[in-house]
C-alpha cells in the first residue's frame, strides 16, 4: 500500500511545487528526491518495517513479487530522472505538471503490481494511461506531438472500452470480479470440461485490450506513431517502465486464466508472440530514424516478454520477467538519454559519434548490445530466462527457434547504430553535455554488465 499512497501524495506535492517556485532545477531536484522517498517507502514495506494498514477487502494484495517489481520500476525511474530530468524541464512551460504526471503513472504501476480482481486492474490501467495521454501531447506547439496524443487517446479509450466489455462479460459469467483462478468457478469449469461462452468471450476481449496496452501485435498500430510523435524524454518513460508494468499486469491477470480456454489458449498466445516478434523485428529493419526504430524494437521486445506469459507461472519465467523489465528499461533509458542529446535522430545523425563523444557512444553500444541479447550484458540473461521458462513449461520448440532467429534479425538494426557511431565518418551535432551526465551513463553501463555477468545480484533480493 505504501507505494500507492506515497506516489499519489508525491504527485500532489509536485503539482503544488509549481506554484511556489518557477525554478526548473529546484522542481527537478524535488522530483528526484521524491523518487528516492517513494523507493524507500516501498522498500520499507518489502522489509516489513512500516506499511499503511488499510482494509481493502482483498481488492489490493501486496506480495513480495509485486513489491520487488515496484522497486525495479522506481529504481529505473530514478535513473531516468537523473539521466533525462533536465530534458523533461525543456519540453514546455508546465514543468511541475510533467513530474506530477510521472508520479501518477507510478501510482498506476503500484496498483498493477498488487491488484487482486478485475475491477482494480481496470482502475490501475486507467491511472496509468490517462497521464500518458497528456505527457504525449505535452509539446503543445508541435503538430506531431498533438497528433500522437490524440491518436493515443482515441485508441486507448477504445481499448479501455473493450476491456470493460470483457470484464462485464466475465462478471456476467462468474458473478464476481475475482480472477478466475481464485474464484470457485475453476473447479466447476474443469468438471464440466467446457467453459461458458460468455466467459470465453470475456477472456478474449481482455486479452485483446491488454495486448493493446503492451503493444503486442495485432494491436500495436498506435505504437510507432505515438512513440515517434511524443517528446523523446516521455517516449523513453512510456516504452520502458510503463510497458514493463503493463506486461506485469498482463501476466498477473492471465496467471491461471488459461485453464478456461484449454488448448485454444496456446493458439492465442502463439499467434500473439509470433506476430509481435515478426512485425516488430522486420519493420524495425527498414527504419531510417533511430527513434522510430526503437519504437518498433519495443514491439519486438514485448514479443520476448510475452514468453513469460507463455511460460505461465514457472519460477524461472517469473524471475525472467523481472530481469527483463530491469534489463530492457536500463538499456532503453540509456539509449534514449543519448538520443535526446543529438540534433538529428536519423541513423546518419549518429555517424562519427565515437570520435566526438566516446563516452556517449560507449554507453549507447553497451545498451544496444544488451537489447540484442549479447552475453555479458543484462539483455542476454533476460532473454535466456524467459526462453528457458517457456521451454521448461513444455513450450513448442519451433516457437523458440523462430524467436532466436528473429533475435538475430534484431542484431541487424541495433548494430547499424553501432556501425554509424564507430565505423563511419561524420560530425554529429551534440547538445552540451555535463560531466555528471557522462558519469551517470557509465554507471548505467556498468549496471548492465554486472547484471549480465551475475543476474543473481538482482534476483536474489526476490527471496530474502
Amino acid at each position, binding site marked *: 500500500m505504501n507505494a500507492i499512497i506515497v506516489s499519489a501524495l508525491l504527485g500532489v506535492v509536485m503539482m503544488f511545487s509549481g506554484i511556489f517556485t518557477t525554478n526548473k532545477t529546484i522542481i527537478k531536484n524535488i522530483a528526484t528526491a521524491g523518487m528516492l522517498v517513494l523507493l524507500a517507502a516501498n522498500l520499507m514495506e518489502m522489509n516489513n518495517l512500516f506499511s499503511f494498514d488499510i482494509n481493502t477487502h482483498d481488492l489490493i494484495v501486496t506480495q513480495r513479487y509485486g513489491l520487488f517489481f515496484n522497486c525495479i520500476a522506481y529504481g529505473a525511474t530514478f535513473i531516468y530522472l537523473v539521466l533525462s530530468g533536465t530534458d523533461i524541464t525543456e519540453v514546455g512551460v508546465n514543468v511541475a505538471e510533467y513530474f506530477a504526471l510521472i508520479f501518477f503513472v507510478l501510482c498506476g504501476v503500484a496498483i498493477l503490481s498488487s491488484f487482486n480482481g478485475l475491477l482494480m486492474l481496470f482502475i490501475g490501467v486507467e491511472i496509468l494511461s490517462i497521464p500518458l495521454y497528456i505527457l504525449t501531447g505535452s509539446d503543445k506547439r508541435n503538430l506531431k506531438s498533438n497528433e500522437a496524443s490524440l491518436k493515443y487517446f482515441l485508441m486507448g479509450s477504445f481499448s479501455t472500452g473493450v476491456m470493460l466489455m470483457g470484464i462485464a462479460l466475465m462478471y456476467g459469467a462468474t458473478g464476481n470480479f475475482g480472477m478466475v483462478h481464485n474464484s470457485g468457478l475453476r473447479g466447476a469449469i474443469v468438471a464440466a470440461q467446457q467453459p461458458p461462452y460468455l466467459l470465453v468471450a470475456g477472456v478474449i476481449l481482455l486479452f485483446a485490450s491488454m495486448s493493446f496496452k503492451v503493444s503486442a501485435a495485432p494491436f500495436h498500430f498506435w505504437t510507432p506513431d505515438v512513440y515517434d510523435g511524443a517528446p523523446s524524454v516521455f517516449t523513453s518513460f512510456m516504452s520502458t517502465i510503463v510497458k514493463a508494468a503493463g506486461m506485469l499486469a498482463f501476466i498477473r491477470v492471465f496467471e491461471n486464466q488459461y485453464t478456461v480456454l484449454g488448448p485454444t489458449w496456446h493458439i492465442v498466445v502463439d499467434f500473439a508472440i509470433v506476430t509481435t516478434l515478426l512485425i516488430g523485428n522486420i519493420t524495425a529493419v527498414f527504419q531510417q530514424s533511430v527513434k522510430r526504430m526503437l519504437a518498433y524494437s519495443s514491439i519486438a521486445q514485448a514479443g520476448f516478454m510475452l514468453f513469460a506469459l507463455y511460460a505461465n507461472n514457472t519460477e524461472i519465467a517469473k524471475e525472467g520477467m523481472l530481469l527483463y523489465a530491469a534489463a530492457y528499461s536500463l538499456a532503453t533509458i540509456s539509449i534514449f538519454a543519448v538520443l535526446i542529446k543529438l540534433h538529428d535522430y536519423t541513423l546518419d545523425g549518429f555517424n562519427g559519434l565515437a570520435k566526438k563523444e566516446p563516452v556517449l557512444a560507449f554507453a549507447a553500444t553497451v545498451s544496444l548490445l544488451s537489447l540484442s541479447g549479447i*552475453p*555479458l550484458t543484462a539483455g542476454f540473461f533476460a532473454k535466456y530466462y524467459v526462453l528457458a521458462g517457456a521451454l521448461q513449461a513444455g513450450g513448442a*520448440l519451433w516457437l523458440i527457434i523462430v524467436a*532466436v532467429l528473429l533475435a538475430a534479425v534484431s542484431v*541487424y538494426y541495433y548494430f547499424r547504430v553501432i556501425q554509424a557511431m564507430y565505423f563511419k565518418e561524420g560530425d554529429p551535432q551534440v547538445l552540451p553535455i555535463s560531466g555528471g551526465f557522462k558519469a551517470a551513463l557509465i554507471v548505467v553501463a556498468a549496471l548492465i554488465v554486472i547484471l549480465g555477468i551475475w543476474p543473481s545480484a538482482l534476483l536474489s533480493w526476490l527471496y530474502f
Partner: protein
Amino acid sequence: MIPVLLLFIPLVAGILGFFIKDQKAASNWAIVASVITLLTAVIGIYAMPASMHQFEATWLPSIGASFSVALDGMSKMLVLLTAISMPLILIATRNNNYSNPGSFYALMSLAQVGLMGVFVSMDALLFYFFWELALIPVYFLSSIWGGEKRIAVTFKFFIYTFIGSLLMLVGILLVYLHTKDHSFAWSSFTNTDLTSGEETLPFFLFFIAFAIKMPIFPLHTWQPDAYEQAPTATTMVLSGVMVKMGLFAVIRWVLPLFPFAANQFEMPIIILSVVGMIYASLIAMQQDDIKRLIAYSSIAHIGLMAAAIFAGGTLGLQGVQVQMFNHGINVIGLWILANAIENTLGTRKLSELGGLATKAPTMAILFVVLAFANIALPLTNAFIGEFLLFNGLFQYNIWIAAAAGVSIILGAIYTLQMVQKVLFGEVSAITANATEINAYSKWVLIVIVVAVIALGIYPQPLIDLTKDSVNALLVIK
C-alpha cells in the same frame, strides 16, 4: 589456477590497453602480455601438477551454472596454439601502423581471452559466453581497421555466426533440461537421459553453430571475404586459431554429448566436408589474390579435419588435434608472407608479382618451406598430421579417402602455382624495387619454419599431448 591466469592476464592487459595512446607502447604492452601468457601456459602444462589445471567457483547456483575451467587433454593443444600464436602475430605485424593503436591491441588481447575461454570452459553456459566474447572483439577489429568493404563483409560474418550461436543456445537449453542434476557442467551434459532419437535435434542445433565457424561447405561463404577484408593481424587470429574453435567444439561438445546422432549422421557430414574440400581447392586454383587463395586453401584443410573427426578412430582423432596445431602455425606463416608482400609492394595480385626469389632470397626460402608444409610434404609438420587424418578416413571408407586425396593433389597444384608466380618468372615493374621483409616478420617466420621442420621430423611431443584426451573421448563414446 592456471586456466584462470590464462584468462586473466590477457583480460587485464586488454582493459588497461585501451588507455595507451602511443603505437609502440601499445604494441609492446600487448606483446609483453602475450609472452607472459605463453610462459604461463607452457609452465602450467608441462611443469605444474594436474591439481593446478582445474578451477571451479560458484556462479549462478540457482540455474546450475558454475565458473568451471580446466586444462585437460582436449584443451591443452589448443591453449598452447592460442598462447603461441598471439606473440608470433603481434611481433610479426609490429611494423603495421594503426589509427588509435591502444584500442587495436586491447581488442586483440580481449579476443585472446575469448579464445582461451572457449578452450578451457567445462560448463556449457560459460562456454557460450566465451564463444560470443571471442566474436565481439573480432567484429570491431575487422570493422574499424579492415579493408574497403569491411563493414558489410564483417557484418555478414557476424550475423552468420550469431545465428549459429543462438541455435546452439537453444540446443544447450534442450540438453540442460535432460541433465540429471539440472546443471550446465560438461560432466552432466555427457551423461544425460536423451534417447538416441531425441539426440538428433540438439545435435543439429549444436553442429550448425560449429559448422558455420569452421566453416563446412555450404556454410563457408562468409569466410573468404572476411579473411580478405580484415586487418592482417586479425586474419591471422581468425584463420590460425578461431576456426579451430569449431573443430574443437565438435570434439568437446558434440561427440561426447550425442554419440548416437553423430554416428547416424556421420556419412552426410563427411561427404559434405569432402565436397567442400574439392570445391574450395578448385576455387583456390582460380584465385589471383594471395589472401583469397590462402583463405580457400584453409577451407580445404579444415574440411579434411572435419571429415576425420566424424570418421572417428583413435588415430584420426589424434591426427585432428595434431593437425589443428600444425595448420594454425603454418597458416599464420603464410599470412605473414602475404602481409609482407602487400606492405612492401602494395599489391596482392599474383599476376602482378614475379621474380621475388632474386630480389628477396631469404623470404623466398621461407616461402618455399611454408608452401611445402601447406601441401604436407614429408619432413614438414603437416605431413604427419595429414597422414593420421588419411589413415582415419581410409579405415572409414576407402572411396571417401580417395576423393579427399584428389583435393590434396589440387592443393599441390595451386600452392606450387602460387610459389611459381610469386618467386620465379620475370621480374615485373612492381617487383623491380622489392626489398627483403622486415626483421620482425623474418624472425617470426624463421621460428615458424624451424618448428615446421622440427615437428616434421619428431612429432612425438604433439602426439603425446593429445593421447589421454582421445582415450578419454573413446571411453565416453
